[in-house]
């Protein structure tokens, strides 16, 4: 005799808010309790500030292309920080502070452009592959596997060589190379959601594929994609900086952090009396990159900690 005790609940408890909203509020509160989030957000906001107010903080000498760094004089040797150049200069007297400020705009452009484009591509391709399955899924996944087989940096170098150098090529290349990550994430989420009962119910009541996709499947799968995106911004900027460092991005004299770091390779060791003479050159542009990426990584980590359903409530 197997008996179970049943109790029905006929009233909901507590205030009748939309459950999604209270979950969201809970997540936000959780997000902000983590000190690392605050630091990450602070860093990103700082850079946003720099990017937005760039024209005011560092007036461009050439209006048509603000990304060309100003330089007073043609002396090759970099100058240490002074009143005129608060952070010092690069070889050929390009002002580092200017480069840092305008480089922020560059970094944001690259990061957001690549990630946004990839998110879109990933959502579309991932949905198609995950939802319709079958041979479409196989094809997309095999191609993704092939892209995965080659490390991104190396492939990026090859593509940049093929397409031609420059910042826009870097962006295009990174978009091309990053799509498998997003596609896979979206696809796996959709595979899970697709078999759930409420999808079956929707189909049984006659909803079309597109409607199901947009209304039911995507909203549940989009979270993981956002988590991956937020964590990916940092990596993307790092790779772009690496490409610039190798000389495959923009030309010299352009406000690009990676290129700025590249210029210091001849100045690692200073003259014998002061071997750390060019510390500002080695340290500052790279530090900016590190800080920027750190901010995004912290934020991405916090977002993941909060929104990843497996790790909540701990």
């Amino acid at each position, binding site marked *: *005799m*197997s*008996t*179970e*005790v049943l*109790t*029905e609940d006929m009233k909901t*408890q507590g205030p009748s808010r939309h459950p999604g909203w209270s979950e969201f509020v809970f997540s936000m509160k*959780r997000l902000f309790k983590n000190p690392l989030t605050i630091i990450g957000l602070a860093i990103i906001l700082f850079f946003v500030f720099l990017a937005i107010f760039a024209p005011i903080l560092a007036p461009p000498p050439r209006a048509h292309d603000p990304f060309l760094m100003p330089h007073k004089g043609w002396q090759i040797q970099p100058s240490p920080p002074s009143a005129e150049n608060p952070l010092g200069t690069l070889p050929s007297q390009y002002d580092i502070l200017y480069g840092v400020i305008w480089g922020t705009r560059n970094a944001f452009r690259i990061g957001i452009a690549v990630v946004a484009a990839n998110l879109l591509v990933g959502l579309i391709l991932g949905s198609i592959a995950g939802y319709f399955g079958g041979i479409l899924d196989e094809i997309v996944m095999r191609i993704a596997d092939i892209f995965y087989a080659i490390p991104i940096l190396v492939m990026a170098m090859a593509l940049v060589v093929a397409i031609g150098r420059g910042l826009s090529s870097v962006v295009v290349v990174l978009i091309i190379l990053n799509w498998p990550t997003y596609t896979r994430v979206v696809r796996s989420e959709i595979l899970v959601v697709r078999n759930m009962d409420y999808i079956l119910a929707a189909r049984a009541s006659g909803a079309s594929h597109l409607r199901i996709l947009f209304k039911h499947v995507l909203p549940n799968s989009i979270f993981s994609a956002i988590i991956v995106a937020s964590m990916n911004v940092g990596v993307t900027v790092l790779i772009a900086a690496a490409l610039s460092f190798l000389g495959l991005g923009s030309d010299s004299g352009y406000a690009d952090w990676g290129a700025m770091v590249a210029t210091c390779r001849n100045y690692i060791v200073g003259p014998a009396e002061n071997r750390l003479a060019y510390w500002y050159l080695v340290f500052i542009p790279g530090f900016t990159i590190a800080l920027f990426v750190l901010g995004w990584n912290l934020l991405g980590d916090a977002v993941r900690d909060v929104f990843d359903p497996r790790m909540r*409530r701990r």
Partner: protein
Amino acid sequence: MEKLIETQDLYTDFFTFEGVVKALNGVSVIVNEGETYGLVGESGCGKSVTVRSMMRIVQTPGKIVDGKVVIFFRAEDRSRGIDILRRSETYMTSLRGDSISMIFQEASTSLNPVLSIGFQVGESFNFHRRAQMLEETIKDLNKELSNRVFFLTRGWKVLQKAVFRRELAVLQSYESEIDHVDHELYEIENQNDKESLHRKVLLNRRRDRLREKSFLVEFLKRFPFISYYQRRQAKTVRRHVVKLLRSLGVSNPDRVVDCHPHELSGGMQQRIVIAIALACHPVLLIADEPTSNLDVTIQAQIVDLIKQLKQTIISSVLFITHDLGLVAEICDRASVMYAGDISETAEVREIFHNPLHPYTQGLLRSVPKVEQADKLNTIPGTVPALINPPSGCRFHPRCPSKMDVCPQEKPPLIEHSPGHWVACHLYTDGMK
């Protein structure tokens, strides 16, 4: 009947992110020797937390904040129980698996997927019966050495024997030291003056710090090839494991011992879990809904097995379930729990024929009967969230007999008739 284990006013809280969950609100349970005790209640009422508190394996962020858990394992002195909440962790470790064992609901996840069955069951022997295993191994080695043996193998066996003897010696000296500490702790168990308390703390700390290891043995255990000597003891343990599995009705134990959990069926896995729990013949077996995930035929088998074992190996069983039918079938006494409180405790017949607490009455009423033709009975409302539990008696929002005093005061657990305890204001002043 003699008391075996008792909890007195146990309070356990969980310090979660959303707030403090007051899971146990002064739970008092008494399990006697030789009886099967049932703990009944809905999901989330605190049954698992109670037994986990009893074994002190409450998961973080939970903590036992007040109360006592007293065990009376020594036959000679029933007046002096040991409050295990005040003892050291090493004491608990020696207790768990040896005197008190626990089996869980989901057998498939309770077993480590990457370790073999033999290893996992053998761990019980290795933790608690190590001296016995070592002695047997040494005896076996002696027997082997008394025959004619090839000289290289002879040397190896002699080496093994020497290491085992060293290990045994260290273990025995450790155990005798522990016995001294435990004995003294037992002597001053009931004394609560400042000096005794201080002494208890010192003794507990000392117990934690004693090491049963000898450097040489530990070193050899990790040395690349010499560590293989341990396989000899593993063989002894394996013999015991096979014997144990066979006695539990596992077919082909020699093969099963080398398997991994995922290769076995659900019923078999549950038997393994039971084997792990029973390896050292515990006095008390706690079963936390062991059959809830099995289909009915397997459920019957496992229940039969437990009944059988109670007659032979175990003394008492604390059976947690939400299935009233099981309670009726196997339990002698039972407690009904609701939202962290014990509502009613009595012999099973009493509970079914004369339920006193409104909650128990509601539970029994909601059991569907064959001749019932109309709507099912339910208890209106839902189980409360325990972050902000209802004041006073936690059942009062749903109680049909609610009185004014109920939200104000928590009803104490009183003995309404001999052996029948109830916590309800309907009975606190001698009414009914």
